[in-house]
């Protein structure tokens, strides 16, 4: 038994907090009209996700989630928000098409959520008899440099091509303007 009984409650409180941050952030990201609030929702969602990754025994992924998503992706989107003026246009007054598309989107979303939840809750998952590795940072590094070295090199190539492509695309418009 645990020598410090409060720690059980502490862990479940932190877990619920991470869950609430993920779900609430996702709702904020898709439901608000101002784009900057939507980006903030994405940030909150990613921080909650990092907490969930920590509960899934992968602190390295939690660190990378905060570093890449909150630190790089969201900040880049904020830059784009400052360069363009992306606020959602004011809703048309109760037009038929808007209501129709809202209903379609809500139906599709609810169907996906319900179907996938049902599938994953009813699936006959079998736990493995024994773990081969412990999933530590050392094990990740070893497998990145041995088994997945080709994919590791290819992803760096993809990132390089993405950087050059972004520069080229953003530059051609500039010379005309």
């Amino acid at each position, binding site marked *: 038994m645990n020598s410090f009984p409060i720690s059980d409650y502490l862990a479940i409180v932190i877990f619920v907090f991470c869950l609430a941050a993920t779900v609430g952030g996702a709702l904020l990201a898709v439901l608000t009209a101002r*784009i900057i609030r939507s980006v903030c929702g994405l940030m909150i969602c990613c921080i909650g996700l990092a907490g969930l990754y920590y509960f899934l025994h992968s602190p390295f992924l939690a660190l990378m989630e905060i570093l*890449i998503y909150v630190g790089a992706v969201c900040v880049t*989107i904020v830059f784009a928000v400052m360069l363009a003026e*992306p606020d959602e*246009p004011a809703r048309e007054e109760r037009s038929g098409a808007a209501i129709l598309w809202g209903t379609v989107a809500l139906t599709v979303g609810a169907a996906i959520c319900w179907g996938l939840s049902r599938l994953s809750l009813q699936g006959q998952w079998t736990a493995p008899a024994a773990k081969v590795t412990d999933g530590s940072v050392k094990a990740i590094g070893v497998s990145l440099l041995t088994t997945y070295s080709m994919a590791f090199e290819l992803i760096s190539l993809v990132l390089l*091509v*993405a950087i050059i492509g972004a520069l080229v695309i953003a530059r051609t418009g500039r010379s005309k303007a």
Partner: protein
Amino acid sequence: MNLLRAYEQADIYLVVAAFLLAAGVYGLIRRRTLIGMLISGELIFSASSLNIMALNCFYVPDPTVGQVFALFVMGLAAAEVAIVLSIIIAVYRNYRSIKTRELSELNG
């Protein structure tokens, strides 16, 4: 089912991943600007990562596989954001707008 140990069961993570995917698809249909659609796409990427990580932690003999896969998903998401944002900037320079309704003409 012990509620105090809820974080040691895969079900909650899988349901949250399904919810994230549904929220992303809802936003992708509902949003009317390009950046809003990009944010919804990021939510879908996060959903796939969380799903893979949950299955990886509970049902896979080698827990490094899913972590490496999630790392690659993050790298691809970062590359995608760089490309999409540069396209958005280029589109905004040409049209002075990034509302999807007004981007309806092709021009070479």
